[in-house]
């Protein structure tokens, strides 16, 4: 089955981020979206550790340990960017001031429930960070994930079996096969990115798809 690469997925998400939006990109795969935002589009990137107007990685040798992103990687600040403390940073999320957040996921349920912080395995050390605040706070929560697990199971599920990050928070899902909207009627196919038919997508998706 033909799949989008990680960069192709990021480019597809970037298409849907409008000029002028305030966006938080989660750690991991969503971080790649920043590389695909067109230069002429002004998008304000928020990082939970206290900056708005995050720029790209610095040139080698220009790293500053006091200027990092949520993944603890060195970053830069755009002209006009700002620093603030953690309570203000999370007020921006919880208060509904972010337009979009893009998060990775273990599972998304047909009703928009999200599981992305903990597998619940007995030997796993849980770590939640800002995932729960982001999921409930942004005006729209996008999920970006592989369509299938490594063992070939659908990550879009009737109900999450992993512990929830937040109930009913996901509005749109981008996988390496397709784009879906979570609607009141169910999971709606928006775009088949690699040319699969609805029936072919349905065969690898554990919930009924709406055309």
């Amino acid at each position: 089955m033909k799949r989008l690469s990680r960069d192709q997925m990021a480019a597809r998400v970037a298409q849907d981020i409008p000029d002028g939006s305030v966006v938080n990109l989660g750690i991991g795969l969503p971080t790649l979206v920043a590389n695909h935002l067109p230069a002429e589009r002004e998008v304000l990137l928020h990082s939970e550790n206290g900056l708005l107007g995050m720029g790209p990685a610095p040139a080698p040798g220009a790293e500053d340990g006091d200027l990092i992103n949520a993944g603890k990687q060195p970053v830069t600040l755009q002209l006009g960017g700002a620093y603030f403390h953690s309570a203000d940073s999370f007020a921006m999320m919880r208060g509904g001031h972010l337009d979009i957040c893009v998060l990775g996921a273990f599972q998304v349920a047909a009703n928009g429930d999200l599981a992305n912080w903990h597998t619940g395995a007995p030997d796993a050390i849980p770590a939640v960070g800002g995932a729960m605040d982001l999921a409930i706070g942004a005006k729209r929560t996008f999920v970006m994930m592989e369509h299938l697990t490594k063992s070939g199971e659908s990550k879009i599920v009737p109900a999450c079996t992993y512990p929830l990050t937040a109930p009913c928070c996901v509005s749109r899902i981008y996988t390496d096969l397709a784009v879906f909207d979570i609607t009141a009627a169910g999971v709606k196919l928006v775009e088949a990115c690699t040319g699969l038919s609805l029936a072919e997508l349905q065969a690898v998706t554990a919930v009924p798809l709406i055309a």
Partner: protein
Amino acid sequence: MIDKRLPDIEAALAGIADGATVMIGGFGGAGQPAELIDALIAQGARELTIVNNNAGNGETGLAALLKAGRVKKIICSFPRQVDSQVFDALYRAGRIELELVPQGNLAERIRAAGAGIGGFFTPTGYGTELATGKETRVIDGRGYVLESPIDADVALIKAERGDRWGNLVYRKTARNFGPLMAMAAQLTIASVHEFVELGELDPEAIVTPGLFVQRVVKVKR
């Protein structure tokens, strides 16, 4: 005359008792007051409860305090990282208690303590296992969880510049939890890289007003 500056880091750390709750600023390494943590290890207080966003990186700073066996409990949002091996080993061995708190709730619980708020309803965590056992309420159709303030005996924070009244400014994303912890602790100890005279910090730009700070000590960059 008010002068909160102390001549050396040992004097700055004096009096921290066994069993104290100690807030430590920083997000990973940014804003982590490494010199104050090293001095806390040397000072010897034990059975500490630590409040930090993480649970130590590598083998230095907070990780070294954990490794020295001084911490009985940690309250944090993101303990597990690629270089959190010290915490991971203690946790798996059952030698440290973990209270996991979503990061925004952690920040707001610390702020609430400093601001005299007795608790607050937040949507973060509602409907998840991190809300287990907590009071919930539906307000205007949305679910919220009652969260309580987190206060502390001591806060160790890192700032950039300070004056003898304890006014502070920070540097870039090293600010993170520092201003909140300064508000929430009975004794806030700040390290700075530069002492300045009263009036040299722009009053429009002071981030932590001096009343939240009890001791300031200068450390090398």
